[in-house]
């Protein structure tokens, strides 16, 4: 029979009595061991792992499973600490319930683990820096950067690049585009002439020379530059100008970046200083010089209520949009859907360097430790690869009505249509699926199922007993 482990770490208090109770109840032996121990000698193929904490500990356990190619579905958690605190009375009952449930139903998870390790080779586009090459060689990763023209195609977790002379299979692609900075909106000649519109960098120098008392300053942040630095600076400038010099501040952007924790605070402070934030389509902002050429008329439509704004600004400061200089591979497609790969954002939502396309990394800076970091990321990706559990998402062929909704709604472009004529069906690509389950929610025929990496009987667990406020 399978082995059942309860892994604890540090000073987790392991709920021994409950476990024993359950052991007697259904006659399963649960080994309680520390995560620190050395499991290398044992065969953990068929093991069921239980953990006691739900927060950071969970990641550790998943990592643990990942490295030993254990089906993540075999790793289950019970937030013992939290549940104890929240439902002190019913906690142990809940736990027992959880144990019984999981131990009883563990057979129902066929542990088909496919380990897809990418080729240990990297393609660098458009051209290869000497420094980078030697950094990669330090990690023992061969690097390619052949002369165009050639074709890059995805094949499983790998990329096949084929030119007329060569045919290579690489595990990962590193994009090193040269970024060009340009204003996010069209600036007419006459507006340019006023000299009242300038990029953030130039404005920085201006701060010391000019006075902004009672002046109106407009910051225009282009959607392509969600770079945290820029945002931080914009927030700071906006706050200080309006605080110290009573300047009237507008910040116009398509999305206002508050994801990073400290930004929440910055944003609120800046608001409280009286700076105005407006979401609007940057490309639709219209600029006109005032008659005295001492300012600009700014015209735009707020996204909230489609309200047409028009006011006079003394200074318009734009955070330039950074777009890659076009080169051979500047657009990526899956089927006929373009994939957003080129955004140089340190978006806290995405891991560093990574793009929405698994195995494709993007870099922008040219210095030693930056390279090192990059190389490390790529290395870890190549060594750990990706565990694909074949029954995590499923498309019920006979239910699918080919409405293409999933294809359109999937944020990761992970879905494509496979098969011929009437047999066509939606198919979810593992390399890209992030298990968000959005397709499942949208599918009108409820043909898509996502058994996520988390116990789906969680609801039952926390609901028992504790109802009333």
């Amino acid at each position, binding site marked *: 029979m399978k082995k059942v482990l309860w892994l604890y770490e540090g000073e987790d208090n392991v709920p021994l009595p409950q476990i024993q109770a359950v052991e007697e109840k259904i006659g399963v032996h649960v080994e309680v061991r520390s995560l620190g121990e050395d499991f290398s000698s044992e065969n953990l193929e068929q093991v069921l792992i239980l953990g006691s904490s739900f927060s950071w500990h969970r990641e550790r356990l998943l990592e643990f499973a990942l490295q030993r190619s254990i089906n993540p579905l075999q790793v289950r958690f019970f937030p013992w600490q939290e549940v104890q605190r929240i439902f002190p009375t019913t906690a142990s009952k809940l736990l027992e319930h959880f144990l019984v449930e999981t131990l009883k139903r563990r057979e129902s998870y066929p542990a088909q683990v496919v380990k897809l390790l990418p080729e240990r080779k990297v393609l660098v586009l458009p051209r290869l820096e000497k420094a980078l090459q030697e950094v990669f060689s330090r990690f023992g990763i061969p690097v390619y950067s052949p002369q165009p023209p050639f074709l890059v195609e995805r094949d499983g977790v790998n990329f096949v690049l084929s030119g007329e002379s060569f045919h290579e299979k690489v595990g990962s692609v590193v994009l090193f585009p040269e970024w060009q900075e340009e204003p996010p909106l069209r600036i007419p000649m006459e507006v340019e002439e006023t000299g009242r519109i300038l990029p953030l960098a130039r404005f920085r120098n201006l701060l010391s020379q000019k006075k902004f008392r009672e002046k109106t300053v407009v910051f225009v942040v282009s959607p392509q530059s969600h770079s945290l630095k820029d945002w931080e600076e914009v927030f700071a400038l906006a706050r200080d100008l309006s605080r110290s010099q009573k300047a009237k501040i507008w910040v116009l952007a398509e999305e206002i970046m508050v994801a990073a924790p400290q930004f929440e605070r910055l944003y609120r402070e800046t608001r409280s200083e009286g700076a105005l934030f407006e979401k609007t389509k940057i490309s639709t902002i219209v600029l006109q010089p005032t008659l005295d050429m001492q300012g600009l008329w700014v015209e735009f439509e707020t996204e909230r209520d489609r309200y047409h704004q028009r006011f006079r600004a003394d200074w318009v400061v734009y955070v330039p949009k950074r777009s890659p200089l076009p080169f051979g591979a500047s657009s990526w497609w899956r089927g006929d859907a373009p994939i957003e790969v080129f955004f140089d954002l340190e978006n806290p939502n995405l891991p560093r360097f990574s793009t929405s396309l698994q195995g494709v990394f993007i870099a922008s800076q040219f210095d030693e430790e930056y390279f090192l970091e990059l190389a490390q990321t790529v290395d870890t990706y190549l060594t750990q690869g990706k565990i694909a559990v074949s029954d995590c998402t499923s498309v019920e062929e006979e*239910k699918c*009505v*080919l*409405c293409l*909704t999933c294809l*359109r*709604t999937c944020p990761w472009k992970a879905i494509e249509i496979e098969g011929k004529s009437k047999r066509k069906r939606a198919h979810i690509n593992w390399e890209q699926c992030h298990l968000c389950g959005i397709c499942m929610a949208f*599918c*009108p*025929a*409820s043909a898509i199922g996502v058994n996520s990496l988390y116990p789906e009987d969680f609801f039952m667990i926390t609901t028992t007993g504790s109802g009333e406020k």
Partner: protein
Amino acid sequence: MIVGERKPVTEIIDNLKGYRKVLVLACGTCVTVCMSGGEKEAQELASLLRLKGFQAQAQTVERQCEKEFNLQLQTGICACEAVVSLACGIGVQVLADCFPRVPVFPGLNTTFMGAPVEQGIWEERCSGCGECLVHLFGNVCPITRCAKSLLNGPCGGSRGGKCEVKPERDCAWQLIYDRMKSQGKLESLLEVQPPKNWSFSRYGGQRKMIREDVKL
């Protein structure tokens, strides 16, 4: 495909006054694709009805416009007091033909034959006039997409490529003009279109197609 909109819940509930056991019947074809009468919506409506104190069940038929598929539900349908069909008008009628004794209520307003222009937006494209002329108009059907069904448009109300009747709607004739221009076939728009023969359309009364060779 056929596009429908769910009727107001209140209306459905009013129709169901006096019935307790209700079957909500989804249709697995067009209305599923246009997200108004598929399994999801059926489930939704069913639970709403349950919350209103009905004994509601939800089921799905592949195509309600096929007798055979409906008849497979014999037992289920005869067990309940009333059926709310989320199929298009066609489905509702066929279903009612199959079970003449069971009261069947439409849960949908069948709106038009159309296509999804983008996720969540459907637009009418054809009004089944029975004599297709789109090739004359750069494959934009003026009968459907022009508010006045002009064959020799555009009318005086086209402004900024939008229709005077509904400013958010594109002027069909603007589209036609642009398309033909891009195809370099503008001169073909110069010839006067004769009055259309509507006898193939609904105006000739209910229509019927018979293929002798495939009949039994």
